[in-house]
């Protein structure tokens, strides 16, 4: 394409006109409080959409992955809650860590976490992801996945029942309602949510 787009426009569709119209609309909306109203409504709509359609990653590390698969099966059926597993981290918003993290897998896991776009949440499922589990003394296993990525919900169990995983999703939904789109880097100091702790 030759020539800048501006040169092909006449004065009624120039960039300057678009900017002026935009600024006037913005001021009008702010004056009549509509902007705030639309912002809150839009934010609530986005939050509703995010928490009702959590897409976890197809990551199966160890035994808890079988319970995660069973949660997707027909008896427990996580899909009725909007949970749908995706194979690529670029399309996911939840990372379910379901096994012990070895030194070799720490780097790929952090890379997977960083490939997920914001907003994203992490669920530590099972004892191995929470604290290293029965292998906490092992020379190759990290003491919990929270040493490398921030965790939002902990689901204890070895392995936790699929109902516990679905309850973990429910607690995550409540947390998303509370915190909105707070980025994951700011969540390091938040109080942990532990399934079964109430």
């Amino acid at each position, binding site marked *: 394409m030759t020539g800048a787009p501006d040169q092909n426009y006449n004065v009624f569709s120039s960039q300057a006109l678009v900017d002026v119209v935009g600024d006037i609309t913005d001021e009008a909306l702010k004056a009549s409080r509509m902007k705030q109203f639309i912002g809150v409504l839009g934010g609530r709509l986005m939050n509703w959409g995010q928490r009702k359609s959590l897409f976890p*990653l*197809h*990551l*199966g*590390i*160890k*035994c808890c992955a*079988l*319970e995660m*698969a*069973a949660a*997707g*099966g*027909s*008896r427990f059926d996580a899909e009725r809650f909007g949970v749908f597993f995706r*194979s690529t*981290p670029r399309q996911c918003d939840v990372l379910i860590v379901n*096994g*012990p993290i*070895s030194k*070799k*897998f720490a780097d*790929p896991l952090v890379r*997977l976490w960083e490939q997920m776009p914001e907003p994203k949440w992490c669920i530590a499922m099972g004892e191995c992801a929470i604290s290293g589990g*029965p*292998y906490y*003394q*092992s*020379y*190759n*296993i990290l003491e919990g996945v929270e040493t490398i990525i921030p965790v939002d919900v902990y689901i204890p169990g*070895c*392995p936790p*029942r699929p109902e516990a995983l679905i309850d973990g999703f429910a607690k995550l939904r409540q947390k998303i309602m509370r915190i909105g789109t707070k980025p994951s880097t700011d969540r390091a100091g938040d109080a942990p949510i532990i399934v079964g702790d109430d």
Partner: protein
Amino acid sequence: MAEMWISMGPQHPMTHGLWTLRVKVDGETVIDTEPDLGYIHRAVEKIAELRDFTKFTTYCDRLCYASANTWSHAYIYAVENLLEVEVPERAEYIRLVAVEIQRIASHLMWLGAYCPDVGNLTAFVWCLREREMMLDLLQELGGSRLHYNFPRVGGVKRDLPIGFAQRCRTKINLFLNRIQEYEALLDESTVFLVRTQGVGYAKPEEMVNHGVTGPNVRAGGINYDVRWAHPYSVYDEVDWEPSVEKPSIKGADCYDRYRVRVEEMQQSGRMVLDALDKMPGGADTHHQHGDEAILAKAPLRAPEGTSGFHHFEDSRGESMFYIVGGGEQRGKFPYRNSIRSPMFITIPYASKCMIGYKVADIPAIMGSFDPCIGETDR
């Protein structure tokens, strides 16, 4: 064409576990492969040197998590060879029931994970539904859905619950009927047949030289099974046959390996029903926890200089534990506990099997050998 290495990296929906398969492709054809394991190496063999014999059973469940009972039983048989313990006959029957129901559940998990790889998503939900039935039975026996810690040195943890025999018979009969549905879905589906027939040929002699055993070799047309070749437990008293397939001249393909596992599920169901009929004392009696009919007295310590090993027919091949006694605490811990995982040896062989086929055949071939990375990485 361009040759390049592609990494089917640790997170991949079709590798059934956490490992990397690096494939060198020339266009669409695979010309070389290199598996990379160790992503969940948990140092279980080193942990074993600091655990009692009974306490280590919980780790053995978690070795191959799809088939937990077979691993804890393999370990306990090796410990009984080390400590020179004889098991009461009723306990052997109960162990057989637990192991064979677990074998059915493991093969169902395999089928449920394999069929989506070749394009059939219905079988995933069907297999998980059947597996839930088997897990209900195992939950009655062992107490948990996935890791049971069921056998003890000298017997089993507890007897069959009251009413278990009737529930077990109902569920196994229902399952054996439902296998016809699977056959109608898969064996008559053109897509499944095209994707699994004619790919991944493997011949038995070569497989055994490479260390591959179990259903993969039986798919090649020979009925070798550790349960009759190196007999243990009461397999000679229940009604069963090793399931063999009839391969083609080039060897066993993925379809044969699938058929042999479906037949094995039927044989396991048959074994369970027969064992419930033949159980000494009847399947409806219930002995108390620790009764000598289900648990023999066993020594706690293995003195220095002793060792024991046991070959066991796991759902995926021949597994083995080799335990040397005389460890710390005057023999309460083992000095060395060495674990032989069939999948550790099968995965390099399966990677070699893929050479010459297309990239799209990789999940079909890899899945048909039934990889489970928990036991591979120990």
